[in-house]
């Protein structure tokens, strides 16, 4: 279905990534946000607080991130599309509820505008060091989706994608901005509502009595309900059977937890989101994401000017990791160069997918600013030798 025009600010704008992200959530149909102030992410909900009273919805500033991250899930089961926004320390506090959303298959969006860590770290400066936390931060086995925009325009576009994927797969989706993308201001085009695809919540058509809350469809994703419609359903973070009832046994655990991962498998393959260029003849491929991909582009251009055939693989959906694409690329190239604003996170996934078929070089950075393109260029030139 198309976006509800009430939330769509159609036109050409000059917005920073945080504000563009907010507009994306509104276009996606989010009418509920809960947040707790934290730099450099707060502008997303500040704009939402300013916009939502005229659109028709709720913003509530909660007492902490623990509250914000579960308030949105209450809202989802009440029938809303909902999200929260945070950065490093707040993201750490939200981990338990990311696990709850995964376990209860609650579609919702967590925006993380990444800053330098660990702990309080660099509140006003960029990093990409929460990538592993986004995937593995809560306890137990589960799957999530994570998306990495590299521009304000993409903050808008991927906010919509995040909501759509969360509804389609019934998972929490992490929208992983970084401080640079969040605070950079660029042109953002917001199209007509009629051209924006919004994935509707898939409410069950079965009547109460016949409906089972966690009975998966063929795509391994169950249909949804909302409170107040007479289904008298039960949601629990305990291991549960298809009825939603707690079931403390090995068989249920295996069946239900395995499905939480299996339902996301398309995202590792044909549904993975990426941007590629110059791969046909590439001997060295730069694999990057978020703000780093823009610095990497400069390094790729410089390498090409020096006669080194460098190519680009920009990860957009980072989790599930697009391993089929990386694995297919590996035998065709001499090396992959992986710059990231951390001391080596996604590079491990690249290495795993490459499985020794080509060289992999990390270009680490502890965060606080972006790479110097010369540093990435040097890595490309060395890898090409």
């Amino acid at each position, binding site marked *: *279905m198309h976006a*509800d025009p*009430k939330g769509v600010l159609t036109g050409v704008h000059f917005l920073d990534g945080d504000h563009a992200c907010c507009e994306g959530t509104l276009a996606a*149909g989010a*009418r*509920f946000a*809960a947040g707790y102030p934290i730099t450099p992410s707060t502008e997303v909900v500040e704009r939402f607080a300013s916009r939502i*009273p*005229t*659109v*028709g*919805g*709720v913003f*509530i500033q*909660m*007492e*902490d991130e*623990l*509250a*914000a991250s*579960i*308030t*949105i*899930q*209450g*809202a*989802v*089961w*009440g*029938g*809303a*599309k*909902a999200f929260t926004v945070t950065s490093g320390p707040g993201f750490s506090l939200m981990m*338990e*509820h990311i696990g*709850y959303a995964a376990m209860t298959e609650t579609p919702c969006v967590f925006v993380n505008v990444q800053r330098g860590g660990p702990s309080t770290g660099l509140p006003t400066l960029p990093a990409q060091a929460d990538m592993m936390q986004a995937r593995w931060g809560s306890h137990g086995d589960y799957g999530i989706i994570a998306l990495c925009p590299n521009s304000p325009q993409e903050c808008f576009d991927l906010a919509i994608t995040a909501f759509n994927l969360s509804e389609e797969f019934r998972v929490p989706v992490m929208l992983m901005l970084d401080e640079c993308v969040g605070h950079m201001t660029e042109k953002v085009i917001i199209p007509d509502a009629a051209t924006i695809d919004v994935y*509707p*919540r*898939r*409410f069950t058509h079965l009547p109460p009595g016949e409906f089972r809350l966690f009975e998966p469809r063929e795509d391994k994703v169950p249909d949804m309900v*909302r*409170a*107040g*419609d*007479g*289904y*008298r*359903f*039960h*949601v*629990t*973070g*305990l291991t549960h059977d298809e009825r939603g*009832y*707690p079931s403390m046994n090995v068989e249920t655990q295996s069946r239900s937890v395995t499905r939480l991962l299996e339902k996301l498998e398309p995202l590792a393959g044909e549904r993975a989101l990426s941007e590629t260029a110059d791969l046909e003849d590439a001997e060295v491929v730069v694999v990057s994401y978020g703000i780093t991909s823009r610095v990497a582009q400069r390094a790729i251009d410089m390498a090409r000017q020096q006669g080194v055939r460098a190519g680009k693989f920009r990860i957009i959906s980072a989790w599930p990791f697009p391993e089929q694409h990386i694995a297919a690329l590996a035998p065709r190239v001499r090396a992959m160069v992986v710059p990231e604003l951390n001391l080596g996170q996604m590079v491990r996934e690249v290495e795993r997918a490459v499985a020794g078929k080509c060289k992999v070089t990390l270009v680490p950075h502890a965060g606080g600013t972006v790479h110097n393109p010369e540093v990435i260029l040097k890595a490309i030139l060395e890898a090409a030798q």
Partner: protein
Amino acid sequence: MNEQTLEIPGTIPADAANPVEPFLRMDRMPHIWCPACGIGTTVNCFTRALIESHANLDKVAIVSGIGCTGRVAGYANLDSFHTTHGRAIPFATGLKLANPELQVVVYSGDGDLFAIGGNHFIHAARRNMDLKVICVNNLTYAMTGGQTAPTTPSKVISATSPYGVFEPAFNLVALAEAAGASYVARWTTFHVKQLSRSMEEVLHKKGFCFIEVISPCPTLYQRRNKMGDGLDTMKYYKQASKIRNGARTTECDMTKSGEIVVGKFVDRERPGYFELLNSQMTETLGDRYAEPEVMCEQC
């Protein structure tokens, strides 16, 4: 008692005529609670309140945290949510704000609501969020084996206070009143009629309502403190309880074996969250204000 009555039935006979059955998920019985635990008594009172209030049960949702009382949501035949430890109130806040026609009841224990979840309690009360919070206070962490809670009275022996509790305990009713609750009452599981009536009353009252129910944990609290069995606890509740409606909540501290002040202490009108939201937005935005419609469309 003969052997037959001691046996726990695996399935409830079809002709069972207990009036609370329609309010429970009978396919989940037997429940996990110990003999002489007070939680079942409170659930019984709650179902009586639902019957008396003539509530549309499709529009009543129940939200629990973690712990023995946290299991109530799983047994209630309502839209029910067993959330994370301490976070029943913020979950319920989102549920209520998204779907205001729901009557949202938070049903959880003292450790859940006042230790790990204490911050959420005071803020929901401050906002006068339209939630009915029922706290079964057994004065201990029961599910995990009887550790000290912020409600455990001085001198009590617990698994983590083997030489006696020395930290001062919270007075929950005073805390609720100070934080802004519209309705505050306390009963024990001996006071089943009064408790049922209070529960019915809050189902008709707008705003943040709080009912504390003092309840035995014979397995881990009474036994460890040589306070007898379930029946002895009922006798203690009967003898030590003083009904003082309207009492000053600051004078209602709980002690190990002293007087238990029970009654309805607070019943006041404060503007609710939506009322304040709507009036503020109308004042500043006028016609531009669109009242919240947060539910997404069906496919």
